[in-house]
């Protein structure tokens, strides 16, 4: 199974933020969801992938090519949708398409016209008159009209109503049907991920927490809740711990081991939705981040 | 008579191919109302009319019992607003915005502003345009929550925010209501947020109010009937709120789930709808072949 996208040891630092050693890979024919709290680095990764910024360290290989040397060739087979798509506002939809068409070797005008009619995008309408949802549809139509093998979408569903969100996710699922194309999309709405994503990559504070298949996240990751005295025993397989006065809630990436370890004790080990995982991992991170050591009560001291 | 934080009656507005027709709903004081609807249904227009940023053709908006045109100033000093469209001076820093906006609000609290700025981890001296979309929304929330507003009008406050912060924001909003009797009107596309905190839900669809009901009542009395064409035909039209054909059969949204259970024959499944299901069924064209 060849990898359409490989990211190895990615480093990038700005004032007050740093991406450290992020590595993940996306096989051909699958959808990967990229999730993480605001400012975790999702958009930075996408900007590095599209060549908008240069990494300080590490390597990104897309479609078998290293993007630092042949970025243009790679981008000719990537379809992108930015978070708030930026277009020339005073041009019409058709005018904008004719400009973008000139850059893509495999541009197909009939595909664009078909998508425009399916998305109810009037070709004669000026871009400034389009609402936010319509601009995302326009960006998607542009991305799907040049035979792209990899779609890179930065929060495409934010600001879209549930009806169109479902439509968009169905279209992404259809896009990877032939097993030759893949999608990487970042989102804050975890229910979208649970509907279509095959792989899930969780970035937090510039570091990779996990990058596995959705089923593995569902089966192996969970929450362990118990009394404080049991905390040290399970520390080995806890990836994030949040404690309060008497009890702790910990995120674990090996639910079976935790169950075996705490069998018979009054410890609750349960499956967790993505949102719950993110909730506790961020809270635990907040605790750790303020330097009070792992497992200390978070800054706000409110037990969940 | 219960006193209402917000009363909108008979609001009409039309311009370039879009029209609000006779929009009416009421938000009692001390509750949260969710405003949902597809893109372009008119949610932002309703909010702009409440804040009197846009002229209306007819209709009346009363906030805290005062007409929002006559007593605009008094009302706006007690409203906290967050807009979905950009409206901040991008080349000015966050502190500049505070220094400029604070004097307008009689009940502005510097201490609340500082605390929220710290909690939301916002850089005070950075230019507004240097912030990410999520952080910009957080700053708008900080301004809205810093002057002890009695009514919060939020247009998609959670768009672009991560689930962790969203959950905390919703907890903060519901905490706000318990003790001080404030009210919140917020429009959103993330229906799971609404299911968590909203007391009332108003659904607006191409310029008209489809319904404005208490959330619990809505989720208890409405139901989705899934089955084949014949079984669905048994339900009479009045309670049918939405229909969607799919390869597996027909899904009908009904406003009276008990009656639907009684009247539906075998081979029909009746279950509880989520807000998203309600939206999808009421927005999709009647017979959109999939």
């Amino acid at each position, binding site marked *: 199974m060849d990898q359409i996208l490989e990211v190895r040891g990615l480093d990038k630092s700005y004032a007050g933020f740093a991406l450290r050693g992020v590595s993940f890979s996306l096989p051909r024919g699958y959808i990967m969801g990229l999730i993480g709290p605001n400012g975790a680095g999702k958009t930075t990764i996408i900007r590095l992938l599209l060549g908008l910024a240069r990494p300080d360290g590490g390597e990104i290989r897309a479609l078998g090519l290293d993007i630092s040397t042949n970025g243009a060739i790679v981008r000719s087979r990537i379809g992108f949708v930015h978070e708030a798509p930026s277009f020339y506002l005073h041009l019409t939809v058709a005018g904008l398409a004719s400009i973008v068409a000139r850059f893509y070797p495999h541009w197909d005008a009939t595909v664009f016209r078909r998508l425009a009619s399916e998305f109810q995008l009037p070709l004669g309408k000026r871009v400034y008159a389009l609402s936010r949802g319509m601009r995302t549809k326009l960006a998607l139509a542009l991305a799907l009209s040049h035979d792209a093998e990899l779609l890179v979408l930065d929060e495409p569903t934010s600001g879209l109503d549930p009806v169109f969100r479902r439509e968009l996710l169905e279209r992404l699922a259809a896009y990877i049907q032939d097993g030759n194309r893949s999608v990487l999309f970042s989102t804050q709405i975890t229910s979208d991920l649970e509907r279509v994503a095959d792989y899930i990559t969780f970035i937090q504070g510039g570091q990779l927490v996990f990058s596995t298949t959705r089923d593995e996240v569902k089966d192996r990751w969970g929450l362990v809740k118990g009394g404080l005295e049991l905390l040290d025993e399970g520390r080995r397989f806890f990836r994030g711990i949040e404690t309060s006065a008497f009890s702790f809630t910990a995120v674990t990436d090996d639910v079976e081991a935790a169950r075996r370890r705490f069998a018979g004790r009054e410890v609750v080990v349960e499956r967790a939705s993505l949102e719950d995982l993110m909730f506790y991992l961020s809270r635990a991170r907040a605790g750790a981040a303020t330097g009070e050591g792992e497992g200390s009560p978070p800054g706000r001291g409110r037990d969940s | 008579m219960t006193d209402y934080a917000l009363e909108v009656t008979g609001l009409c507005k039309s311009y370039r191919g879009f029209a609000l027709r006779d929009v009416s709903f009421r938000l009692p004081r001390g509750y949260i109302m969710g405003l949902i609807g597809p893109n372009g249904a008119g949610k932002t227009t309703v909010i702009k009319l409440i804040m009197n940023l846009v*002229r209306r053709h007819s209709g009346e908006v009363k906030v805290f019992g005062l007409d929002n045109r006559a007593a605009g100033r008094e009302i706006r000093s007690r409203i906290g607003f967050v807009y979905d469209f950009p*409206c901040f001076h991008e080349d000015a820093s966050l502190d500049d915005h505070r220094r400029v906006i604070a004097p*307008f609000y009689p009940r502005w609290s510097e201490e609340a502003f500082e605390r929220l700025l710290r909690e939301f981890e916002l850089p005070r001296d950075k230019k507004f345009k240097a912030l990410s979309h999520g952080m910009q929304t957080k700053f708008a929330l900080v301004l809205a929550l810093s002057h002890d507003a009695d009514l919060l009008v939020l247009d998609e406050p959670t768009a672009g925010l991560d689930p962790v912060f969203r959950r905390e924001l919703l907890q903060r909003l519901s905490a706000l209501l318990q003790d001080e009797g404030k009210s919140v009107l917020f429009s959103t596309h993330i229906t799971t947020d609404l299911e968590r905190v909203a007391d009332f839900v108003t659904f607006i669809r191409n310029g008209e109010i489809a319904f404005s009901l208490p959330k619990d009542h809505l989720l208890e009395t409405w139901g989705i009937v899934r089955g084949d064409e014949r079984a669905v035909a048994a339900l009479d039209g009045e309670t049918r709120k939405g229909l969607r054909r799919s390869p597996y059969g027909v899904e009908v949204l009904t406003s009276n789930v008990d009656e639907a259970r009684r009247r539906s024959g075998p081979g029909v499944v009746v279950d509880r709808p989520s807000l998203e299901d309600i939206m999808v069924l009421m927005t999709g064209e009647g017979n959109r072949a999939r």
Partner: protein
Amino acid sequence: MLGNLIRLDLLLGRRVLALNGFLFTFWFAFFLWMGGPDVSVGGYIVLTSVMSVFLPVTVIVREGKFNAAALTCSLPVSRREIVRARYGLSIGLGSCLMVVAITVGLLCPWSHLAVAKLVAPKALLLALSMIVLEVALLLPFLFRFGWIGIIVLLIVLQLLGIVALTLTRLLGHGTAFGLGIKALANALRSLYANLGDPIFVAVWAAVLVLVTFASCALSTWLYGRRRV
């Protein structure tokens, strides 16, 4: 409340103010240098007043760029107060820049302007009148159309000027147009001459106040209807 609004525009637009202020001052000096000896005090004042009014306009127009008008209108202020504050700001800023223009006229080594005439009350009154008239003319366009309105107004005025010039040249000076232009030029000259005696000044001041209030009312009506 007006003070807060003026402070809002000044504080948020301070960078634009500084940059444009510097550029305008440089432009005054450059104009004097290009003009050389044949620049009259009246001409200098009229031209610099036209430029000075554009400083407040650039500060106010900034809001359109970020469509921050929605923010200002959502604050607990009425649109009437916003319009009044902007008029005050425009006249104030315009007058300050006129003072700068006059000092540039005095201090510039290559300026040939008669110092006595430049600082005479007549000149100062002419400067103030020009500022007030231009503000009264420009601001309704600014409130109704935003920065596009100003550009459209500029193009229209320029075209009118050119049409008048070419017509007078082609049709000769005797025709209606020739007289029209000459009348306008004479009116300005006579205004400048009459500013000396106090009675005329009193009447003229009343006219200016009336014009400002009329323009302010018009702007309030226009801005009230504007979709922010």
